[in-house]
């Protein structure tokens, strides 16, 4: 893949002596070199910039929600404002942060590196997908700033089509547009993984991160069109009263819920699968072991992607859907939980007789596993029909999905950011601060969301601006939750600060700091624009740890590795 850059051939020895550290970051400068880049690594960083912005904004909304709920009375903001706060929090976090977070940043950055390719299959489409994302996010952002939206991130009709006086169509348009960026990214990943693997990189030598992204991409390209058409129909219904969802016009409001969840349940796996991929990498590296049951972990991702499309009705157990349909959705929901459980068991088994270090990424992996077990198990509570009737639409559900989405997806994202930060930036982050922050985040997270399980079972409905005064325990739990949210918020700011700090002051990162086995660690940190100066030939299995001296010398990819102490590295073979 040719890049648009007019750079001399970097492979010549002469060039390298004059520019000792040419990499994708310093290959050229200027805003244009970023906005017109077709380098997947730079595009990954562009995405990082976008998702971080929307994460911060979503976090501000969350803070306001938690402050309001400290007291039972709705006294901080008006009801209408409160409804906008949780709606906008949900929309930003789900559509503009969690869905693109890992795939579009880490996935974009790493997939070509991991499979030994120079770039994604369609670099220009990759750049286009970022622009589409920014356009969609911009439109939604504009709608939020100018009027806001109050339908909940679920857009239930007929409230969204006939009753809400807020900017439903505009906000929906942004999500609709951003969906195309998801589809393009998914397409790009699938084609890349199929066609651009380096010689010797067979399917079963792929890192599990790549398998997870392959499964995620399947969901993206098959699921996203459904949410796109659903949003389009909501807009048409709202503007032209076409009568699909409105019973007064012969429509059916429950139909909307089927369409919405047909995408939105698989979408929760768009959020968690990439994170699971990250955890597989981290657990292997910091246990120095091959992942136990590699094929089971790989295929469990595919199983999740497939079964994930068959369980949408578990969001609708009280919706007046037929009780028999409810039973089918319930039983398949249990089936889809099994592959997730298989992953957890395999990660645990990987640690058995490993060589475990407590570097920050591993701390996040520990947190992920523990919290995901609770999040996933409470999914089983919710899939139990008779029990869901009680806890549906209460804080129990809120706690469940925050355990999987923050405790799971976000922990994986943070773990991944730390793990690959040396590769991305060429610098090490401060380890002490990072461990401290991960602890703060873990404590803050649990303090925020655990009380919400209790609140939910006690009957506190979700999306409530105010709650009964005569239930003092509720307020106690809400205050705990708000306190936790403050701790969590501070914890999340710390990495933001030291990552930026480390870009200038961090220690220089070696090409393989941990050390690890993936191809991405066998090129320089940060990698050159074309990733590998010579096409790598893969002769080892996934997570095949070689003697450490050997591992330390396999990179960097900009020079064929030299034998050290008589150990001939097999990692990179000249082609």
């Amino acid at each position, binding site marked *: 893949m040719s890049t648009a850059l007019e750079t001399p051939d970097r492979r010549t020895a002469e060039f390298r002596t004059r520019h000792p550290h040419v990499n994708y970051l310093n290959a050229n400068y200027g805003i244009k070199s970023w906005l017109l880049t077709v380098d997947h690594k730079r595009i990954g960083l562009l995405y990082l910039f976008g998702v971080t912005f929307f994460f911060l904004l979503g976090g501000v909304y969350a803070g306001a929600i938690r402050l309001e709920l400290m007291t039972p009375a709705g006294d901080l903001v008006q009801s209408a404002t409160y409804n906008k706060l949780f709606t906008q929090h949900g929309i930003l976090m789900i559509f503009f942060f969690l869905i693109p977070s890992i795939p579009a940043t880490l996935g974009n950055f790493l997939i070509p590196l991991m499979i030994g390719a120079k770039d994604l299959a369609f670099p220009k489409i990759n750049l286009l997908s970022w622009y589409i994302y920014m356009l969609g996010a911009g439109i939604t952002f504009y709608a939020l700033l100018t009027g806001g939206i109050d339908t909940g991130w679920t857009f239930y009709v007929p409230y969204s089509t006939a009753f809400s006086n807020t900017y439903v169509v505009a906000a929906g348009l942004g999500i609709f547009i951003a969906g195309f960026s998801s589809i393009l990214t998914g397409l790009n990943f699938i084609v890349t993984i199929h066609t651009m693997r380096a010689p010797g990189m067979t399917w079963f030598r792929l890192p599990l991160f790549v398998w997870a992204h392959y499964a995620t991409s399947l969901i993206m390209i098959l699921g996203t069109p459904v949410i796109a058409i659903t949003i389009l129909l909501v807009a048409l219904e709202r503007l032209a009263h076409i009568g699909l969802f409105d019973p007064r016009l012969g429509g059916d409001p429950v139909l909307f819920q089927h369409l919405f969840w047909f995408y939105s349940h698989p979408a929760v796996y768009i959020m968690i699968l990439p994170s699971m991929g990250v955890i597989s990498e981290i657990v292997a590296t910091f246990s120095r072991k091959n992942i136990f049951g590699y094929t089971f972990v790989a295929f469990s991702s595919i199983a999740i992607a497939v079964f994930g499309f068959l369980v949408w009705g578990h969001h609708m157990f009280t919706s007046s859907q037929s009780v028999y349909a409810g039973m089918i959705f319930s039983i398949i929901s249990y089936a889809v939980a099994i592959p997730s459980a*298989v992953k957890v068991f395999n990660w645990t088994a990987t640690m058995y007789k490993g060589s475990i270090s407590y570097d920050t990424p591993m701390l996040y992996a520990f947190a992920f596993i523990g919290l995901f077990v609770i999040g996933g198990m409470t999914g089983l509570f919710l899939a139990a029909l008779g029990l869901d009737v009680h806890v549906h639409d209460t804080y129990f559900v809120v706690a469940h999905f925050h355990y999987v989405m923050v405790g799971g997806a976000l922990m994986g994202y943070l773990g991944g950011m730390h793990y690959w930060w040396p590769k991305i930036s060429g610098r090490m982050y401060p380890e002490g601060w990072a461990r401290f922050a991960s602890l703060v985040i873990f404590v803050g997270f649990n303090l925020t969301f655990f009380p919400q399980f209790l609140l939910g079972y006690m009957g506190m409905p979700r999306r*409530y601006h105010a709650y009964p005064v005569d239930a003092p325990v509720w307020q106690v739990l809400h205050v705990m939750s708000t306190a936790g949210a403050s701790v969590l918020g501070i914890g999340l700011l710390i990495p933001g600060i030291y990552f930026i700090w480390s870009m200038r002051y961090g220690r220089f990162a070696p090409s393989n700091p941990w050390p690890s086995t993936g191809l991405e660690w066998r090129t320089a940190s940060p990698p050159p624009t074309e990733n590998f100066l010579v096409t790598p030939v893969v002769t080892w299995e996934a997570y095949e740890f070689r003697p450490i001296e050997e591992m330390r010398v396999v990179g960097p990819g900009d020079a064929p590795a030299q034998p050290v102490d008589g150990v001939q590295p097999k990692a990179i073979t000249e082609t």
Partner: protein
Amino acid sequence: MQLPQVSVPFAPEQASTFAPEVDALYLYLILITLFFSVLITSLIIYFAIKYRRRDPDELPRPRAGSLVLESLWSVIPLLISMTIFAWGASTYFKLYRPPQEAMQVYVVGKQWMWKFQHQTGQREINELHVPVGARVRLTMTTEDVIHSLFIPAFRLKMDVVPGKYTNAWFEATKTGTFYLFCAEYCGTNHSGMGGHIVVMEPTAYQQWLSGGTSESAAGQGGKIFQERGCNRSGIPTPVHHADLSGAVERGANPATDRLSPLARRARAGRRDGVGDGQQRRDDHDERRRARHTTLEPARADATRARTGRRRRAGLDFAGRDALATHGHASPAPVVARAFARAAVIR
């Protein structure tokens, strides 16, 4: 299956026949979750300590997978989850299969209040009186958006969906006052759309029905419904129950109320103009909304005419009207009514 009586901490009171069963299932799940999370967490902590890296260059031996282990940890969780499924499904069937023999209560949700009507004609807003130990069947719909009737103490929840009727039922096992919420987000005042359910001894309930003073009705009868905006407490605590005077005046009593739908309509017609507090409030509400109408005049007029006719016939309680007339077959009048409501809001 006879279940042991369990009570779990941080749970609402158990006030219906479902409550102990749902709590038992909840407890079962908690135990399973405890088992697996303690298992995984302790294994991780144990491995992390036992196999911590002691030498920066150490390299453990790679391990092959194990088909036996993989099968075990797929099949055992699957079997366990099937027991959860079966239990959950059987509870669900009980919850959503109302018995034939039951006291009927009609429920209509609207932004942002719950309207209840007893078989005997009494109407209430945001408060529902029921006798303890009786099966109560709720037939529910909505005038506008989707809402969801949620009674935590009964472990019961059911959406009300425009254009159709949904059912739920319960049998209260304990007298007292319990929360009632709207659980499906329905717009600005969603969190104000709640109140109480008052479970009474059968005799007290009879007294209440006939308009006598029961301890609970006495304190609250006739209070004007408070819109949430002016209720600082959050939940409308002293929930008004509908002004019963209208119903009483109409001479509602169980005997006469078992009239055929036609006869009832006729009787209601004769009572034209009696009106009651609720109707006045409804009318006021209707007018308030009509002011914001964006419809072309003809449509709005037709809308008003339609509701007007209904009003004159004293049939402002759409759900009941529709049910009385059509049983479960056709929700048409409710739809028309909901249309009338919704159309003027847009």
